[in-house]
């Protein structure tokens, strides 16, 4: 539904004629993010400043039109999809790194700054920004903060929320506020901590102050093959059981390794049931000692074909396979549905075997590539959109996989967010009272519900629950 002409006119006055898109064909570009479901916005505004974001929000508040903040659109849970129509608030023109303070080891950035660009800029000072989602070449810091993104290295370094010091935000009424800042232990409630990961449902983010870390002097990346996912999972637990927390521990299954090797020629052993990438960093002494210990532990747990990346180029090649794994899967099927769930690490073999069975049941190939150290699995259901009725099968399979995650004591999302995709499943892990507490926070920030409506909270009117009869199981199994 197009915006009323006078509303469109008000928005044009805020951002300028060139920064407003409302021609139907142009809007289709903004229909989707990286997930399956899409919806065309009524208008897209390309904001260039905090003042413009505030102006857009004021117009939206006045007319009670939904606003969905949007970065690079790489999100995987439908967080940036305008499911109730309204305005897509595109912030990618706000892409300035405003300040890097090498002494304080902080950076102040606009929300449209690309994740990797920040680390590249910080590298001039010997610093880096730790959260590194696999989409880091494209995704934005604003989107990362909204989704509380993770990445391979969050095993040691933590996720986005551990690195955001403060933010400038625009509230639903268009007012501009700062939450938190450089000093620790601030007085009052930690609004910044609640806003990070709130998926654009509480406010729009216009500036982010982040912590930077010193680039470690030594980094070693190890690759090892294992006969099965189970043996590789056991090796992961054994490493951590020895008191070693590597900076990353990533696993790929046979399907993924085959596709990756065909594409990147990274030297992954294609006969393996699973391939594990382990990275440690620190001083030269520390990485040498840890690498030796880890190699021993991996070998004791049936690891073979072990390789150590000795140069930066070798290391980049090993990681290119991991970070580009999803794209390489296009060799198998043109479309994929990437899921995201977390289980306690020791449950990984069980959940992956359930995932395999579900894939077989639906006759859909599944490729697993995931953050093994965190217990964060990413089953990729591979399919061809042109096959009739396949999407429903894919969704059902994905839903059953999530169900398996929850039944093993896990959570619906480790880093992709709930968004549109998983909102219907929230009652699997949260009671009405839990959700009510979250809703109280939502109502404080956005009483009229104009900020990214239809996300996070279940909306029973929208999507039927295929497994509705089984809901409640997880709640009963919960320790509290």
């Amino acid at each position, binding site marked *: 539904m197009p915006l009323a002409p006078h509303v469109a006119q008000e928005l044009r006055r805020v951002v300028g004629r060139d920064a407003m898109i409302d021609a139907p064909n142009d809007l289709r570009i903004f229909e989707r993010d990286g997930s399956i479901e899409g919806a065309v916005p009524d208008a897209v505004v390309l904001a260039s400043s905090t003042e413009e974001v505030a102006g857009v929000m004021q117009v939206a508040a006045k007319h009670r039109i939904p606003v969905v903040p949007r970065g690079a659109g790489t999100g995987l849970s439908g967080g940036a999809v305008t499911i109730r129509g309204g305005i897509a608030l595109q912030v990618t023109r706000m892409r300035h790194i405003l300040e890097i303070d090498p002494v304080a080891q902080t950076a102040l950035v606009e929300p449209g700054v690309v994740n990797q660009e920040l680390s590249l800029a910080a590298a001039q000072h010997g610093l880096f920004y730790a959260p590194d989602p696999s989409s880091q070449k494209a995704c934005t810091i604003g989107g990362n903060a909204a989704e509380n993104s993770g990445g391979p290295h969050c095993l040691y370094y933590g996720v986005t929320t551990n690195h955001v010091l403060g933010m400038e935000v625009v509230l639903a009424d268009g007012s501009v506020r700062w939450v938190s800042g450089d*000093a620790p232990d601030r007085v009052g409630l930690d609004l910044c*901590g609640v806003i990070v990961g709130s998926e654009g449902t509480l406010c729009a983010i216009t500036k982010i102050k982040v912590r930077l870390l010193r680039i470690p002097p030594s980094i070693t990346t190890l690759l090892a093959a294992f006969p099965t996912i189970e043996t590789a999972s056991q090796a992961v637990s054994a490493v951590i059981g020895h*008191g070693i927390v590597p900076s990353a521990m990533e696993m790929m299954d046979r399907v993924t390794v085959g596709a990756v090797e065909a594409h990147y020629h990274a030297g992954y052993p294609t006969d393996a049931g699973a391939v594990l990438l382990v990275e440690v960093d620190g001083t030269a002494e520390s990485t040498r000692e840890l690498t030796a210990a880890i190699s021993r532990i991996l070998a004791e747990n049936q690891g073979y074909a072990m390789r150590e990346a000795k140069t930066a180029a070798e290391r980049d090649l090993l990681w290119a396979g991991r970070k580009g794994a999803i794209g390489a899967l296009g060799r198998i099927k043109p479309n994929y549905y990437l899921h995201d769930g977390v289980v306690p690490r*020791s449950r990984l073999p069980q959940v992956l075997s359930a995932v395999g069975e579900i894939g077989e049941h639906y006759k859909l190939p599944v490729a697993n590539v995931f953050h093994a150290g965190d217990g964060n699995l990413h089953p990729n259901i591979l399919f061809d959109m042109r096959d009739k009725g396949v999407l429903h099968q894919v969704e059902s399979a994905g839903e059953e996989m999530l169900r398996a995650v929850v039944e093993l004591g896990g959570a619906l999302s480790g880093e992709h967010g709930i968004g549109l995709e998983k909102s219907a499943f929230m009652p699997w892990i949260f009671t009405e009272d*839990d959700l009510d*507490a979250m809703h*109280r926070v939502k109502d404080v920030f956005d009483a009229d519900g104009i900020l990214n409506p239809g996300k996070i909270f279940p909306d029973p009117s929208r999507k039927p629950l295929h497994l509705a009869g089984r809901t409640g199981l997880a709640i009963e199994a919960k320790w509290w």
Partner: protein
Amino acid sequence: MSSRGPLQSAPAIEKPATAEELARRLHAAAAAKLSVTPAGGGRARGMGDPLERCDLVLETTRLDRVIEHQQSDMVVSVEAGIALEALQSHLGRAGQFLPLDPFNSPGHTIGGLLASGWTGPLRLRYGSPRDFLIGIRVALPDGKLASAGGRVVKNVSGYDLMKLHYGALGSLGVIVAASFKVFPRPLHDVTVSDAGGWDAADRAASMPLSPSALELFSDGRVLARYFGSRDAVDRAVSELGWKKTDSAVWDEHARRGHEKWARIAVPRTLLRDVVSSLPDGSEWWASPGAGIAHWAIATDAQSVTAMRAKVEAAGGTLVMLAAPDDFMREVGSWGTAPATIDIMRRIKTAFDPDGTLNPGRFVV
């Protein structure tokens, strides 16, 4: 608790044995318009402004179970009233620990530490519980028990309400259970000391291997603690050239607490300037890498107010951790209200509409 504030009579004290019972008692008190003060081990009871009212103290100390410790998952779920030492000894049997070493120990409960936000030297390496608290369960004044997060180390399912309750001093609800990511005990743990003051601390902080804890004292003494692989730690220690010290010194340090003391938190690059402007002869200790200092106050209220002005000008906060009531009333616990106090008040109202919890004690 009862000695603080202009109370009409001594409050009732109840120690519920279950979270459900606690929630029921809280709800009943709220419905009867009574005010409730949650309490754990009482180690941070001096924090906050004097209570306006206190009809009922709800103690969590009987909620002291380890609910679940999945050793191989490095995750623990506990009831809020468990003492930190009891939890550490439980985790220690599995070679694990919670990297939390708060001042004014021993005797803190987990719930009390989450509500008060108190931390210690290891914060430099591991961050605060804000960084490793992965799940929480809270009793609300309407009798509901609301959980957020979960038992997995990485989780973006729903709002991060752990952050909302952490450091809220029990003003939104009573924390009844929590889950944490725990850590393996370090492979190697060495403590060294020096007497070189700020310059020595700066030097330790800039070395390739960062210390896991680095504490500086007003007499110029510096303590550094190194965790890591043996070779790396040995090299760092030998390059630094400080004297090896028994790690028991950290237990002694954690026992620090004063009748009248304050926490100063500023951007870490400004800490040295701020601390050097404390009144002459002040006793203090600082965590330079975290931007935090503690001040054992031996001067008058005016000196605290003057100091707070300097701290706030540096973008930080000076929070009183304990003081006699009249002193506390004069300086105020918290200082200038945060700029977003309006939003915080609305959140308070959404969770505790009748102002049942800790009236007058916190900023909201």
